[in-house]
């Protein structure tokens, strides 16, 4: 078991260094995409700054710094997820076209192998943006501590939710749109204060689609730390990752290979 885990971590790291050197070949394009994405995220910070300035108070118990913490965690978590597993949104496409065959032939787990095969250049912009934001915020020690922990649980949850959505393609035909929509939901709901969502939406993001655990629970931990909540955060992230893994592996039994011939360069 541990040997398998070690082998797959090595595989992820190999993909990482290979993909990074591929991006570095087109240095200008890479840097433009990184800074473009950071600029993209910064425009929302401007929006929040104007809004808080106009209101002169908080929004649903959140201050400017709190909303920026949500942004920092989601941005860096999203960056991490898409640096290591950028192919997560291509799963449906790979199932539909038969491209998954390539990964089935290799002696590594097909889920890890397929989603780790690509790196997103703009994800580096997201990763950096979150860190820069934390520095500019002059964040407290507790904020930094929760940031350092929750970027990993966030990355795990973002990847798991996308894998769950796309794995449905094994069971119900092309679910590319469902996977992408879930992914969009994940990002959109995690960057706004928890208190603006009420009723069924709030229940949904705290249970079946644990988007609330990406940023909202870490912020709660900043102000009201408890070991129970922290364990719950790790538990939810771990269980959801196992659920995604199980759903994919079970679905794989239903996979029908295509006759697509491709070259991987």
């Amino acid at each position, binding site marked *: 078991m541990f040997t398998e885990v070690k082998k797959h971590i090595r595989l992820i790291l190999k993909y990482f260094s290979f993909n990074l050197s591929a991006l570095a070949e087109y240095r*200008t*394009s890479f840097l*433009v*995409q990184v*800074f*473009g994405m950071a*600029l*993209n995220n*910064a*425009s*929302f910070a*401007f*929006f929040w700054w*104007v*809004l808080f300035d*106009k*209101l002169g108070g908080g*929004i*649903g118990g959140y201050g400017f710094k709190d909303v920026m913490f949500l942004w920092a965690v989601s941005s860096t978590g999203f960056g991490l997820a898409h640096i290591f597993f950028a192919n997560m949104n291509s799963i449906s496409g790979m199932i539909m076209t038969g491209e998954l065959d390539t990964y089935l032939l290799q002696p590594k787990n097909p889920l890890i192998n397929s989603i780790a095969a690509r790196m997103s250049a703009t994800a580096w912009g997201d990763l950096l943006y979150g860190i820069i934001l934390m520095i500019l915020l002059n964040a407290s020690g507790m904020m930094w501590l929760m940031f350092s922990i929750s970027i990993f649980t966030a990355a795990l949850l973002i990847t798991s939710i996308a894998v769950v959505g796309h794995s449905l393609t094994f069971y119900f035909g*092309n679910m*590319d*749109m469902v996977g*992408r*929509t879930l992914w*969009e*939901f994940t990002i*959109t*709901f995690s960057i*706004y*204060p928890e*208190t*603006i*969502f*009420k009723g069924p*939406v709030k229940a949904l993001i705290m249970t079946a689609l644990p988007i609330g655990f990406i940023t909202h629970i870490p912020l709660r931990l900043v102000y009201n730390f408890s070991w129970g909540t922290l364990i719950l955060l790790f538990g939810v992230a771990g269980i959801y990752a196992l659920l995604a893994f199980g759903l994919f592996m079970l679905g794989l039994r239903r996979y029908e290979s295509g006759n697509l011939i491709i070259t991987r360069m």
Partner: protein
Amino acid sequence: MGKYLSLAGISVKNALVYRANVTGRIIFYFVFIFVFFSLWRMVYSGNEIAGYNLTQMVWYVCMTELVLFCSGAGIFGVMNHEVKSGAIAYELLRPWNYIYKQFAGTLGNMTFSASVFTLMAIVLGMIFVGPLPGFNAAAIPFIIVSFMLSITMNFFFLMSLGLLAFYFEENSPFYFIYQKLLFVFGMLIPIEFLPLWAQGILRYLPFSLITWGPAKMVVDFSFGYAIQIIPLQVIWCIAAVSLAHFVFSRGVRKLNVHGG
């Protein structure tokens, strides 16, 4: 003219064929409006902010999003690809004006999107906050003209940015910056939220005239405002079309295509 109309017709058919794409955009539109409705509901407590009440603010976001969902934003990517891949060389041999051909080719899709998302905007506005108090039906023709000018202006600006691929290896920064200027100067919040000095400048700039211009006309119409905004939109529209022509005609001289 006939050939451009045929192209527009094909583009409507394409929009109807790729239903999954349309459904995805509808869901995304819904989610975006829902999140902003939730946010503004929390922010407002019966008061007005920068001259907007909750109902106006939710309708405002419905309208600014409507402009962006109908503007054929994909044109930047299309231009970028055609220039960089050299595919544009084939288009130059065909008996039409390349700029207008692209516009006609997207027009059908934009018309289709306009029908779908206008309906969505009205339905969501009604569900979330109800009708706009004091809405004057006489405003509708002005609103339609303003929206058409916004969408056209945005399309040709995006096309010009895409055509910059003739001059720059990497033209996406221009696109990123343009998109963000639209975001912060009218799309997410009305310009009335910004300091007075900034409002004075932004009222005349295309970024605000694309989003804030028509959206404000819907939520707070006055003939005086329409008469002030529409001519400015016409001027910027002419500027955008001229810019696309200029960038294209200068850029095409630089084109070198090797092989096929």
